[in-house]
């Protein structure tokens, strides 16, 4: 089994390096490095978005939770996929047309506050680190279970190649790795699922270990289920690494179609974890492994011998591809936000930020104990839903939003999330609030942003209407030539034609930021 696992992981590593490092052309500019030159084709972008979203939590964690906790866990992937529809309906095209290149950049461009940009960058860093820690811990579980390696071996196997790919070509390399590995994951997970289900049907069927528990949820649990669905949906639409992919599309229309492509691909992929969850519930006792390990143990339990070893190796390769693709994407998105906040955007600062973010994530990983990857990812979802989701929705659609209102919403929503997650971690039970902090934090964040914005009308940017017009004009009248950063030192091309057309007069050049 160890040989097959090493072979599977080695193959994924070689493929990632071929796709990400041995590239057809070197990145020549900052925009190419940060945003893959904003020229990623629709289906490739869709595959990359899907790859970003099918992390360790999806591939191993959800299946493991279905196996251990029953059918309630079916809701997680359904809710996460719903988030893309909301993202598509309210955010994608306007955000791309804003011409900014990260969520913090959008915050500063829309609301004119460098301080808000710094706060948003800190939140992006927090969500990104939580996501990376989930990947590293899941990798440690996998290498410990299948290869007998210590935990740091798993961290190094994921962090090392992810850093190499992100350093080599920035978002362009990451996009190629993610889109390539999405298809690899899809084929391997689907193929192994078919073989395992055929094994179960064709081979002399032992009495299943446990095939009960798929009962209807009790009525009192229904509000909780709906809340979990909403948490997954709103969390998905605010995730920085998902939003970053919107910026890599050539224009708003392509960005929309990329999300539809991702929706189609995810619809196929997300049917697989429940298939594994049902198999795991039937064949693997929950005490045999943690939630993240059940999928990896299935082949050896259901088909002991060489066939089981080969299937285990293939599943390990698919899981490793999931860790690597998600880690690359998170690293590129977070490094882009951090580097453009603390220094002038550039290849050097991007690479330095990749290194810094990786070291921080490894330190947090070492300081925390491995739990379920789904729990960690849900914390990231909750934080993202309570902060970025209101910022994006109100920033895109409501002219009267102010920087003070957003900052207050961040404090209220983010603070409530941290407090409730902390209370849940130490065993305090406040019902739905601690079980699903999003139920409290998201409405609170929206309400605080609206109320504080209304009481600070003097902080409404003078060009708010112009910003909104720019975001909502169709592509043929809006900028098609690329992005524009709010930073005075941005190297990006400015395009003021749409505003000139719209207002019928020339608009002054932007002034440099202090």
């Amino acid at each position: 089994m160890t040989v097959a696992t090493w072979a599977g992981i080695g193959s994924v590593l070689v493929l990632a390096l071929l796709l990400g490092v041995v590239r057809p052309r070197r990145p020549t500019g900052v925009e190419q490095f940060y945003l893959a030159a904003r020229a990623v084709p629709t289906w490739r972008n869709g595959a990359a978005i899907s790859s970003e979203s099918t992390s360790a939590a999806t591939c191993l964690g959800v299946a493991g939770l279905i196996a251990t906790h029953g059918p309630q866990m079916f809701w997680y992937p359904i809710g996460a996929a719903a988030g893309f529809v909301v993202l598509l309906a309210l955010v994608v095209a306007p955000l791309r047309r804003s011409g900014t290149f990260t969520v913090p950049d959008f915050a500063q461009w829309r609301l004119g506050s460098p301080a808000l940009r710094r706060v948003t960058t800190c939140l992006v860093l927090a969500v990104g680190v939580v996501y990376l820690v989930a990947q590293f811990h899941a990798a440690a579980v996998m290498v410990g279970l299948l290869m007998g390696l210590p935990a740091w071996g798993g961290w190094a196997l994921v962090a090392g190649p992810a850093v190499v790919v992100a350093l080599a070509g920035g978002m362009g390399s990451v996009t190629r790795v993610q889109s390539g590995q999405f298809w690899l994951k899809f084929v391997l997970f689907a193929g192994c699922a078919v073989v395992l289900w055929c094994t179960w049907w064709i081979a002399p069927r032992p009495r299943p270990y446990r095939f009960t528990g798929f009962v209807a949820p009790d009525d009192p649990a229904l509000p909780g289920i709906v809340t979990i669905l909403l948490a997954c949906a709103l969390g998905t639409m605010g995730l920085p690494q998902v939003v970053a992919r919107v910026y890599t599309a050539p224009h708003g229309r392509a960005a929309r179609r990329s999300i539809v492509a991702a929706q189609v691909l995810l619809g196929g992929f997300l049917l697989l974890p429940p298939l594994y969850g049902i198999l795991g519930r039937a064949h693997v006792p929950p005490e045999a492994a943690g939630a993240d390990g059940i999928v990896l143990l299935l082949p050896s339990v259901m088909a002991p011998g060489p066939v089981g070893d080969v299937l285990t190796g293939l599943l390990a390769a698919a899981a490793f591809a999931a860790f690597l693709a998600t880690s690359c994407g998170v690293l590129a998105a977070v490094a882009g936000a951090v580097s453009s906040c603390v220094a002038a955007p550039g290849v050097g600062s991007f690479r330095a930020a990749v290194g810094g973010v990786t070291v921080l994530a490894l330190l947090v990983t070492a300081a925390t104990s491995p739990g379920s990857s789904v729990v960690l990812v849900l914390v990231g979802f909750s934080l993202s839903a309570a902060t970025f989701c209101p910022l994006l929705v109100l920033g895109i659609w409501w002219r009267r939003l102010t920087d003070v209102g957003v900052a207050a919403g961040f404090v209220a929503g983010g603070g409530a999330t941290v407090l409730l997650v902390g209370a849940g971690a130490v065993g305090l039970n406040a019902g739905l609030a601690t079980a699903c902090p999003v139920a409290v934090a998201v409405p609170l964040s929206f309400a605080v942003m609206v109320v504080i914005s209304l009481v600070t009308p003097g902080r409404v940017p003078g060009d708010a209407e112009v910003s909104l017009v720019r975001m909502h004009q169709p592509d043929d009248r809006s900028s098609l030539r690329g992005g524009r950063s709010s930073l005075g030192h941005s190297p990006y091309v400015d395009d003021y034609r749409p505003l000139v057309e719209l207002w019928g007069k020339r608009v002054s050049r932007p002034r440099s930021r202090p």
Partner: protein
Amino acid sequence: MSGRRVAVERRPPALTCCFAVPDPDPVRQAAATALRRRQLRTGLATTALVAATLAALPALTAGATGPWTWLLVSAGAHLAWIVLAVAQVRRAERLER
């Protein structure tokens, strides 16, 4: 420099981020605002449909006792998201023609 302080009648304008604000043509501004409202209505309608589907899903599985029902509900939900996403894109692109 005089040490005398004077009361400021109006606070200074908020820090704007990039553009000096031009005087808009009222007709074009009205057209832009109308387009934005139509886009918002379309987006909110799709969001409401997503919320309604999310709320209805647990009720749909109220009688589910086996894994196959859950798999079917899961597949149906993903299909619904795809249909809603395609419909949203078509409506949005039609609005912007």
